[in-house]
């Protein structure tokens, strides 16, 4: 079973606390890009947060920081994920990543391993699971995302939608307490978007999720909160009805007019 049972007391626990996160990239000798310019976000257990905003607004950078794939600048405020302080160099980032699941835009399945081996690898190596147990649990998860029949296939035999469902199952195999999705449907053919969103919708009932997405329909329907970002900052943060129905900031309105 997927972890994160939704009892009311647990719902109050903050899983993510980000304050004043900054990230600058040096792109030339004296050219600097501010990917994040003071990013704030708090997420409590059970929430489904959708990050939206124009490209280059820092959504992906912010998401990747929550999994320690990007390091914030030294003058950042605070970043705690699942109780770990990610700004502290002493923190074991591998342990944090093991507890946080991540799904990428381009799936990033391991092409040299079969589907079931993709799922079993991390539980075996990181948790020391017995190979048979890891495979049994992997099959269970493949069943849930509806592709148990592909367990023995190499990833390149799958359609885009199937690949992304395997990627979701692979992340779930580590029993994460938080799932991050980085534009999970952006690389898919239109007719395959639905099957991936269906799996995510199912998952949303039992999991805390942060989703960077351009799927406004999904955000409106599934999100408990929608966060609009622009130029490396959170511009608007609220329930979907409010952000989509009555956006308070002109930049949010301009963006939504373009995409809706």
């Amino acid at each position, binding site marked *: 079973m997927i972890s994160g049972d939704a009892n009311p007391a647990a719902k109050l626990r903050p899983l993510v606390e980000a304050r004043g996160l900054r990230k600058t990239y040096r792109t030339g000798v004296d050219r600097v890009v501010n990917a994040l310019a003071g990013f704030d976000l708090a997420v409590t257990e059970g929430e489904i947060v959708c990050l939206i905003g124009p490209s280059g607004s820092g959504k992906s950078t912010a998401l990747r920081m929550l*999994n320690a*794939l990007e390091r914030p600048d030294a003058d950042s405020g605070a970043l705690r994920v699942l109780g770990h302080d990610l700004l502290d160099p002493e923190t074991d980032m*591998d*342990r944090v*990543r*093991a*507890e*946080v*699941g*991540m799904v*990428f835009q*381009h799936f*990033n*399945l*391991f*092409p*040299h391993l079969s589907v079931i081996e993709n799922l079993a*690898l*991390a539980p075996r*190596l*990181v948790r020391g699971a017995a190979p048979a147990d890891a495979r049994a649990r992997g099959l269970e998860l493949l069943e849930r995302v509806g592709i148990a029949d592909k367990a023995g296939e190499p990833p390149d035999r799958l359609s885009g939608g199937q690949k992304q469902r395997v*990627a979701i199952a*692979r*992340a779930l195999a*580590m029993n994460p307490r938080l799932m991050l999705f980085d534009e999970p449907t952006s690389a898919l053919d239109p007719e395959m978007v639905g099957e991936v969103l269906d799996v995510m919708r199912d998952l949303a009932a039992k999991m805390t999720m942060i989703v960077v997405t351009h799927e406004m329909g999904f955000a409106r329907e599934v999100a408990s909160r929608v966060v609009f970002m622009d130029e490396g900052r959170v511009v608007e943060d609220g329930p979907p009805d409010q952000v989509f129905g009555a956006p308070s900031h002109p930049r949010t309105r301009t963006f939504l007019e373009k995409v809706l």
Partner: protein
Amino acid sequence: MTRARRRLAIRIAIYAAVVGLALVVIARADLRYRWAWGLFFDRWAHLLLEGLVLTVEVSLVSMLLALPLGVVIGLCRTAHDPGARLLGFGFVEVFRGTPLLVQVMIWYHVLAGPMGLEGPGAWLVAALGPINRALGVSHAVQPTTIAAAVAALACFAASYIAEIVRAGVQSIDRGQMEAARSLGLTHYQAMRHVILPQALRRILPPLASEFIALVKDSSLASVIGLQELTMATRDVQAGAYMTFEPWLVTAALYLGINVLLSLGVRRLEKRLGVARRGEAIQ
């Protein structure tokens, strides 16, 4: 006859004509040389086969050392740690940037004594002893000589393998490393189980070239007195006053080893399913 078949037939005819012409030229050339194949095979050929045994042994042992060493050095060059990167860079530049002949001399004359290469050399000689006796290799192998030869060949080949490995690792999409790390794997685990298995498939062809180069380069061990194939050939030339027969046979023997090596790697490529990528489209 289809168009494709007609084109194939024309191509085969052209190849046959070229090869035929070359054979006629060689056969008609006056080499002013009295062949003595009978004498050669009766009295001298076995010395070349003894040399061949040593060439294969030294090449194999060097390969077995060069591959892991090259992988480690190559990974050092892609490492985050600046010390490791500098070590990898230094190793590659030193062993790739000087002639192998000079390196063989330095290993044998300069380094072998202070580094105590005689010990591992003696161990290697003892390990190879039963094989050599079974194959009828008559002369004794000096421990220091074989150790210096193996050390020189292994380090030299490792410096090239390191660059091949680095290129292979860097050719793997960044998303693979990110996906592996996002699941909680350490950098080492991600390298070992995700990046390297994919990289090694890609670098099999250049690795095969490196192994073939290693077999040929082992001939340089003759300068420190290792009785490998090239040294044996020179001995036969001097002892038998024959030149053409031993050298042509030796060339054929090297070619034979390397063709076998090529075919072996090719089979490995097929088994791993990489051979079909990039195949021509008809």
